[in-house]
């Protein structure tokens, strides 16, 4: 799989060239355009792996259930993927390791990578902010997207990141969900709510903007909906 990131950083799109027989797994709804010979299959789990149990696990988590698998029928195929919100993308090479990715930041990966949707490390307390997490395992390339810019933070010791700003982090890091301020009252009045305290050695990739904050910033100017 050959990846080119186009028009970085504001309105990034990923152009993938798939060789014959290669399969790319992408987030539902990410396809912008593709060559005519591309086959698409929609499943609830990584193709040929996992199965019903994993799908059930994700359903209980209240997550989007579907992944699209793109395979060129004959010869090479071209695939262009994009996101809804403006922002950057990054590629990541997994070498038999594990990367925890915020659900909305996952764009696509090579077939050799196992997408585990059932990762419950942050538990339901964070799902309250409608964030879910994926555990990507295996060997191959991954493309992640962000709302705004992406910047890596090398953690050696302790570091605190707002949960809405996390794109991905190495599984080698330990973490706890905690309050941002010294008291619960201050944390919530300050609008920070819950933050993630990382501990250990590894990298956290952060996005410059929090999609949920953006949504609430627009909220008061939008027309009311019925339900």
């Amino acid at each position, binding site marked *: 799989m050959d990846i080119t990131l186009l028009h970085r950083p504001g309105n990034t799109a990923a152009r993938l060239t798939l060789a014959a027989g290669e399969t790319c797994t992408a987030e539902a709804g990410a396809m912008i355009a593709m060559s005519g010979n591309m086959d*698409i299959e929609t499943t609830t789990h990584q193709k040929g792996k996992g199965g019903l149990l994993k799908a059930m696990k994700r359903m209980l988590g209240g997550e989007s259930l579907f992944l699209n698998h793109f395979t060129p029928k004959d010869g090479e195929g071209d695939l262009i993927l994009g996101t809804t919100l*403006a922002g950057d993308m990054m590629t990541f090479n997994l070498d038999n390791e594990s990367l925890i990715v915020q659900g909305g930041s996952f764009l696509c990966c090579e077939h050799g990578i196992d997408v585990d949707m059932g990762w419950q490390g942050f538990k339901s307390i964070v799902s309250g902010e409608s964030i879910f997490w994926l555990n990507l395992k295996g060997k191959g390339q991954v493309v992640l997207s962000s709302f705004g810019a992406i910047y890596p933070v090398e953690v050696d010791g302790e570091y605190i990141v707002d949960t809405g700003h996390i794109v991905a982090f190495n599984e080698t890091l330990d973490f706890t969900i905690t309050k941002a301020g010294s008291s619960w009252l201050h944390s919530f009045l300050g609008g920070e709510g819950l933050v993630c305290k990382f501990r250990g050695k590894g990298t956290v990739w952060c996005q410059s903007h929090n999609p949920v904050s953006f*949504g609430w910033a627009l909220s008061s100017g939008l027309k009311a909906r019925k*339900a």
Partner: protein
Amino acid sequence: MTALFNIRMHHSLDAAQISEAAVHFAKLFKIEPEKAEQLLHKAPVVIRKGASEEMAGKIGTALQKLGITISLEPVADAAATAAAPAPVAAPEATPEAEQSAGHAVNDGGTVVSPPDHPGYPFRIEGRPDFSFLTVMVPGEQMLKVEASAMATMDTNVEMKTKMRGGLSRLLTGESIFINEFHARGGAGEVGVAPGAPGDMGHVYLDGNVIYLQNSAFVACGPKVEIETKWQGLTKGFFSGESLFLIRAVGQGDLWFNTYGAMIEIDVDGEYVVDTGNIVAFTEGLEYKVSKVGGYKSLFFSGEGFVCRFSGKGKVWIQTRGVQALLTWVHPFRPVKKRG
């Protein structure tokens, strides 16, 4: 101030040699190989505007290895100098290669119409995220602009509002009015800012036809007709966009905008585009709206219906979709109180 030059490239390569050179050329200028090949076919063509002598020397040496020579043209014209990008150390650092039609091949550069451009002189700044178009309308000439898109203009420019494309334009969700900007008693500048932040494309029409998605129209020359075209019920209904397309035909400049960045695709055979990401396409391409895979994919893939283009031509697509953003925003809408 140091002297600046426009760099024009020349070569006498045959088709096979061009494809070979294009690969290296693409690497050198960090553009796609197809673009490089198109550019090479267009030679002699200006590939870099407002370059310093030192920079020109570096580009020259690099291109010589590919059998391409360059010539330098001193920059006289003020517009081109103003558009000169900050000097970069080496040619590898993304120079703006331009096609004769006035398209910048890669990101971030200001597009300035070449001196031999047959239409109005123009420049597009702020690409690719926040494009802004400035057109120099020659004296006693006219420019058509999408209603409410004008941002700045000279005082000698007079605006007239015309109804265009008849009532059907109302149905496209666009304004049925197009503003005409007449430059009185000399040339006048008009600045046009499209509604959505994104990239902007330019095509010089010479009797050919371009179809635009209904909100993509920005501006055009006086001899370009903007018509509304009924797509047919099935195509329109399932595309989720609009039952109508804009058909631009005639002779002159045509500018169109995108929401998000723009990708130009040369279709030869078949290409599939999400209906929300189509910006424009050339006439002669067949298209049909169909579901993306099996029925399971139709409902759950998040792609729904797609547009399948076939034949030979060009399609311009945008990397973001307005409809997709609206869907994303929906949960944040306040809930209406009952009663």
